[in-house]
């Protein structure tokens, strides 16, 4: 089977019986000199009716597919499907996360903003298509398959260098040792070898150390995932691990925490006995509490303070009323309503659940609010009454007086008569 043209090293004899442990015949391997001859020979083999054969070359030979009768692969369709799925998946991911599960208003953009969602959908499509191409191609080729009986032929080692081969498998229906070899010889093969399967059981199985290595490395690779899974599904009373502490642990005490320096274990030391913070003395009874001296100690004032604590004159003018209106609208209208009649939003909504409580009508001339002195009104705003909580914490004293003035104005306005009209009023 060797021809004068054959200029390779040969360790196997012409009949192709290799060295040790030969099993059954796997197939016949023929070497060719040039790509053109390979194509011609492949066509002859196909025309002779063989189907279980393959050609081998160091690069894809032009024209070999039609010569061998290789059918076009459906891989492109699969890849298209992959890409399409990826793109849809990318869109679905963004819709779910940003438009459905937890929507955020980002600079007023719609939560389902297709223009802003396109780049990621596009990249996901391409990524999935690429992964499908890559893994799909290897899977379709059934690779990795690091061992093949043809590798037992030393000559075959040149398939990745400069040689061209046709290998016909013995399992083909038309395979007949002599006739097949003759066909290949006539087709121009420069060398033909028989390939046998490996018989030596020691060489047939994967070496133990490789198996061990694969198992061990897979196990090691899974360790981080196992740790993560355990951490995600278990509770721990330990604090988080701070790999980079940064400024996470600062040598200071935070407000209202435990502090063992003091016998009461508190960081909050409270007010210092016998002291009042500057500006918090609040001596002026009238301004701060609406009280004036009276027959039995103190009584509610019926007027307004004369001055502010800093000495400035207290004027009941439209500036005060405007301020009072603004503050009233902020703090009082939810219950008392804009007209002071007690039909604000809160009682209206509460009434939907049945009669619960009613809010005082501030402007009704028969109500107690119409007749109570200013100081008492001031006190109600500060400290509350019945279900109304006090607003001392939210409204500074000056503003409370402004609200008192506005309530009086509201009472006047809501009970106005024809004589109150501006053109009717005497200056």
């Amino acid at each position: 089977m060797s021809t004068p043209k054959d200029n390779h090293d040969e360790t196997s004899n012409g009949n192709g019986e290799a060295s040790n442990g030969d099993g059954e015949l796997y197939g016949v391997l023929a070497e060719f000199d040039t790509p053109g001859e390979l194509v011609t020979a492949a066509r002859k083999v196909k025309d002779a009716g063989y189907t279980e054969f393959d050609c081998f070359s160091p690069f894809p030979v032009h024209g070999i597919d039609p010569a061998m009768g290789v059918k076009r692969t459906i891989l492109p369709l699969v890849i298209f499907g992959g890409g399409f799925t990826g793109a849809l998946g990318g869109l679905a991911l963004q819709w779910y996360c940003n438009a459905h599960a937890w929507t955020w208003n980002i600079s007023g953009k719609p939560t389902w903003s297709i223009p802003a969602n396109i780049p990621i959908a596009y990249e996901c499509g391409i990524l999935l298509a690429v992964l499908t191409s890559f893994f799909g191609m290897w899977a379709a080729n059934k690779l990795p398959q690091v061992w093949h009986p043809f590798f037992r032929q030393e000559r075959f080692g040149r398939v990745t260098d400069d040689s061209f081969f046709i290998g016909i498998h013995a399992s083909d229906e038309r395979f007949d040792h002599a006739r097949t070899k003759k066909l290949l010889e006539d087709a121009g093969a420069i060398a033909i070898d028989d390939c046998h399967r490996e018989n030596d059981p020691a060489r047939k199985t994967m070496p133990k150390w490789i198996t061990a290595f694969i198992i061990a490395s897979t196990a090691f690779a899974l360790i981080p995932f196992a740790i993560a899974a355990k951490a995600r599904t278990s509770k721990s009373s330990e604090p988080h691990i701070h790999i980079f502490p940064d400024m996470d642990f600062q040598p200071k005490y935070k407000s209202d925490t435990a502090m063992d320096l003091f016998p009461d274990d508190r960081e909050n030391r409270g007010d210092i006995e016998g002291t009042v913070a500057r500006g918090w003395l609040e001596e002026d009874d009238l301004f701060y509490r609406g009280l004036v001296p009276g027959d039995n100690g103190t009584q509610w004032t019926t007027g307004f303070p004369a001055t502010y604590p800093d000495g400035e004159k207290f004027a009941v003018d439209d500036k005060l009323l405007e301020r009072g209106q603004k503050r009233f609208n902020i703090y009082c209208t939810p219950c008392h309503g804009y007209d002071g009649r007690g039909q604000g939003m809160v009682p209206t909504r509460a009434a939907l659940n049945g009669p619960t409580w009613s809010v005082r009508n501030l402007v009704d001339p028969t109500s107690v609010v119409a007749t109570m002195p200013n100081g008492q009104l001031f006190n109600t705003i500060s400290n509350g009454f019945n279900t109304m909580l006090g607003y001392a914490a939210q409204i500074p004293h000056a503003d409370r007086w402004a609200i008192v003035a506005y309530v009086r104005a509201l009472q006047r306005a809501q009970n106005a008569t024809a004589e109150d009209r501006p053109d009717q009023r005497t200056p």
Partner: protein
Amino acid sequence: MSALVKSLHPDEKITAGKLGSSMMKAGVGLAVVFLGLSLVLVLARGTAEAGHASKWARFFYAYVVGWCFIATIPIGMLWIILLHFLVRGRWVTVVRRICEAMTGSFLLVWIAGLVFVVPVVAGYQDLYYWATPDAHDAALNPVLQHKLGWLSPGFFFIRYIAYGAIYVGLSSYFAKKSREQDESGDPKITDHLRKVAGPGMIVYAFVTAFVGFDVLMSLAPKWYSTIFGVTFWGSGCVGAFSALALIVLWVQRSGRLVHSVTEEHYHDIGKWMFAFTFFWAYVQFSQFMLQWYGNMPDETIWYKYRMFGDWQWVSIAMLVGFWAFPFVFLMSRWTKRIVPSLVFFAVWQLVFHWLDLYWNAMPQFDWYQPGNGLNAGPLAGNLALHHVGFDPVDITVWIGLIGVLLAGIGGHLKGNLIPVKDPTLGLSLGHEQL
């Protein structure tokens, strides 16, 4: 990767004969009939549209759209000629003479364009807002004042002539040298054209961008986009390659070049159609997404007109029709190699290319109107009133101008339809896909 060389088939019919003149006659006929029809439609119109001074306004807008359509086709063909020489391409040679004939229409196209340019120079104000006295009102349009020197009828006209001269000069130079090579067979001509293609491409790029800026973008003079020249060119090339496919098929139908142009070449023309469809979508998306995302009112107003009201349907039709549908189907090799399918997509893309130009230009028709300098336009507060309203004049002018284009191309379809002595002809004839 094969590189087969073939020679011209001995029985091949390569001369144009009466082909050019029959195309020219058909073109002239089409132009006369449909432009005449357009004139009748305009004159029969009773009054001008609301907000427009003259009843010719619609005609001129339609004319600008139609003119851009017929201008972008030779622009795209000039590009492939320049590119072919620049990168020492091979497959184009077989159809290059036809491309050259298509670029030969530049002169007639530019003369046809005078129909809308000359009135602007003469003072017509219902086409370009920057030609109106309102534009010069500094209180009404402060942001326009600095560019009215650039956007003035006189300078506009000078630039228009310059663009035309450059296109005509460049294309006729390449065509002339190519025909010279038919006689002399001198391979040095190819080398020379390769050298010229470099600077030629640079000049071409600037001129094309500025044609887009001047003719189309200035219809909305307060709006701007740096990529506009590129979108104009990209959309144009879709149309240009589609037109090439149809014209080459028509030439083959007449019995010429039947052996020379194979399905391999159609496959490549189809590939360029596909590539530019994708490229157009890419640059359009860039323009849209960036202006949408930045949300700056002087830019978004242009898109606001196209995203709400009736125009949104046109926008969606373009997205699906100009991009999605052809993109999916032109991906497969078979749609490009089978003639009926290629014809279908070529016609389809030509229609959508026109629609793209229409979409660029027409919303401005209701937008800038005399007496209203606001960026928003009179209907911005009520976009629902802003109708697309296809007018028959839009179509008749378009078809009439297609006639002008065909007349221009037909006038140059003479002599050899294939560069017989081009050194790359053999490789082009033997061209195959991977």
